[in-house]
């Protein structure tokens, strides 16, 4: 199916979601170059300034340009979340495939270890990690990846175990194929779609985790800021209804809602292969 026909097949919530996702990815990639001001520069006497021609999204609690801060911040939020979600989904899927094709006690052991990990609340783990090692982008990615790998593993394993019992996998075994071939060539292509959906979900979770960490002051450190820390540092503007606190919150919302709408539309379509009836 070509890209155009895929797009046509997408329902309108999916198209809105796609537009939002593309917009935010573009902002993350080019936002820094588009920003009218330096991220740390105090450019206005007006604190918590309203929407204006010179500062389209107002100014923050120090009088910095909000548009520039959002454009910079989205790079952190999206970049970190993308890296962490990618790491979590890839590791989870790889471990799940290895466990499911090996079967027996290997599968059992790996699954129980992952179950133990899944019981650690992600925010607690993140707090402990930051307390122990201090906050840095690399550590945040590692922490987020660590907390979401077990979830990705569980989904991937349940998919792989279902595919594992199908006849074409049995046929491959009877041919004498090794576990690596069976995992990568026979099983993986049949679980890619649900795993992509799961990846989108993990991305949203990581955005929310990182935003929460930044809101607590433990995420991205000043002078850099991600969307979560932008909300936190401008929280006192809430009582004045300042754009400085509303805009980053809306940014987080549109990003996560957009990703979710895209996932729902992309995975909710009728699956091919349900062919043939008994008539």
């Amino acid at each position: 199916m070509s890209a155009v026909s895929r797009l046509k097949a997408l329902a309108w919530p999916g198209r809105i979601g796609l537009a939002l996702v593309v917009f935010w990815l573009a902002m993350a990639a080019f936002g820094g170059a588009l920003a009218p001001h330096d991220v740390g520069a105090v450019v206005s006497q007006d604190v918590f300034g309203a929407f204006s021609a010179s500062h389209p999204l107002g100014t923050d609690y120090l009088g910095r340009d909000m548009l520039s801060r959002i454009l910079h911040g989205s790079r952190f939020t999206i970049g970190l979340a993308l890296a962490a979600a990618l790491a979590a989904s890839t590791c989870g899927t790889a471990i799940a495939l290895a466990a499911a094709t090996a079967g027996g006690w290997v599968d059992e052991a790996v699954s129980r270890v992952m179950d133990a990990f899944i019981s650690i609340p992600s925010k607690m783990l993140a707090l402990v990690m930051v307390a122990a090692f201090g906050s840095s982008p690399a550590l945040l990615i590692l922490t987020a990846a660590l907390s979401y790998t077990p979830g990705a593993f569980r989904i991937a394993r349940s998919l792989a175990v279902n595919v594992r019992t199908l006849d074409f996998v049995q046929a491959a075994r009877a041919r004498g194929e090794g576990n690596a071939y069976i995992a990568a060539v026979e099983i993986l292509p049949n679980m890619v779609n649900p795993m992509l959906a799961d990846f989108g979900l993990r991305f949203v979770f990581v955005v929310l985790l990182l935003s929460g960490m930044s809101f607590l002051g433990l995420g991205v450190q000043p002078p850099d800021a991600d969307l979560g820390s932008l909300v936190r540092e401008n929280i006192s503007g809430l009582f004045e209804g300042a754009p400085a606190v509303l805009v980053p919150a809306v940014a987080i919302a549109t990003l996560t809602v957009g990703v979710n709408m895209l996932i729902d539309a992309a995975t909710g379509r009728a699956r091919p292969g349900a062919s043939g009836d008994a008539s």
Partner: protein
Amino acid sequence: MTKPLVRVEGLRVTAKGPDGATLVLVDDVGFEIPRGEVLALIGESGSGKTTVALALLAYARPGCRISGGRVEIDGTDVLALDEAGRQRLRGRKVAYIAQSAAAAFNPMKTLMDQVTEAALIHGTATREAAEAKAVQLFRDLALPDPEGIGRRYPHQVSGGQLQRLMAAMALITDPDLVVLDEPTTALDVTTQIEVLRAFRAVVRGRGATAVYVSHDLAVVAQMADRIVVLNGGKIRESDTVDTVINHPKDEYTRMLVAAARPQPRGEARPEKETPLLEVRGLVAGYGRTGPDGLPAVRVLEDIDLVVAKGAAVGVIGESGCGKTTLARVVAGLVPAARGEVRFAGEALPAEMSRRSREQFRRIQIVFQNADTVLNPAHSIERILARPLAFYRGLKGTAARARIAQLLDLVKLPASVATRRPAELSGGQKQRVNLARALAAEPDLILCDEVTSALDTVVGAAILDLLAELRRELGVSYLFISHDISTVRAVCDEVVVLYAGRKVDAGDRAAMGHPPFHPYADLLIASVPALRIGWLDALPPRLAASLPPIGESRAEGLCPFLPRCAIRQAGRCDSAPAPKQKLPDGREVLCHVPLAELARIQGAAP
């Protein structure tokens, strides 16, 4: 002349294709059914027979639309009814018996609740009256324990019983018309007989009018008064059973009738016999290994089997007899607990990991279900390229040339290579499945029910292909099937399995006449013959109602004992059955002397 109960005129059912074009599923179908007659709708998959049957309930499956024609039942045009009118019609005037009873019952409710449901919904009877009537129906349908069976849940009865309970469910409201949609297709042959007999008794006893949908001409010949042959949504022939079966006028009907009478395909086996596969004293099963080194659930017990080079050996038995496990042990998917599997003179290791790639190459298995055995994510080319690369290191142009050859060998067009399995028909998928096995250039192909999921005509074509490949390439087959007529058509030798034991074996000629092991006798006699009145003429020794396979199986005794109609107290229930041999190579596992077996079985008409 009385008015017919059902009159269908110019029925047309359409669906919208993926590209928005209108597909005609049923085109200009018309027939009449007089009160008290049984009409059969016969055809292959996609012929529209179920679609026509559902239209009698004024129902079209999702995505389909009844776009023209009239369906008149007892003077009412049911297509003109509104939704409420249709609800009053369904289950009350027209009842439907679906193919899979197991899927049609709610596992959480008792059978009695479900059987009486229609009567209570339509208010035709009080609960007490409905239950009394249900018990009467259970009795008429020859169900065991008619008083108590209603308190059970669906999983507590067998498949054949469930199918009969579904008939009771349909008949509870005394409908004018009963639609039976392939009601015995999913059943084993010996179970099918009981169900057919029960169905016919109630249909005749109540003078019910029925539509019987089936792909099986031989079954229909026992049940119906008239036959409508459908193909591609159009009527090919519509006549009495006798005319359709014995003097078909239409070319397509003639083809169906021919396919229903399998012809022997293999030729005499080679003079010099070199054993290729030897199985000795094989025991295999599933579950935890006990202290004696044997698995908890033993599926195969002491199996001996030899497949000579270039020969075809058939293994038959009903579901649960262990025939698929046998193929899986040979392929290495299930380890043997005891015994030996020798291939081309050397012992095959039980574990897969210790078999060499060459051993894998020489034994290929063709699985039963072509729908699931091809990876839906791969193209046909990729599916066929893998064994070429894996076993023989063929890549690039050489591999593509070989794939084209293979597709040609199984009589598929070369354009199939770029397609995905989901884009092929069932018969085409089975050919690809076979081509993949042939790509390895094996010496032995294990065919596990390769034709059972296919229509008769397509299945016959696959059997022809197998016979041709054997002649041309000299491959050997271990051919596993539940259908003795299929096995007799392709195999030189037949082995009958029952509850994991080899109860009867012999070459094709010897298996053509008595004596048989009582189970083999039952199996052979249960295959419906394409002959009117076959069901009525069955010998009484086959008429007994049978318990399910393997029930109350005593250790060491004859496994068939509980079901055997000619068992002899004091002999059969005291010692293991001896293996009796005949001069022509037959082996029968039975206490009853062969001469006596031959006398009992020869007496049958």
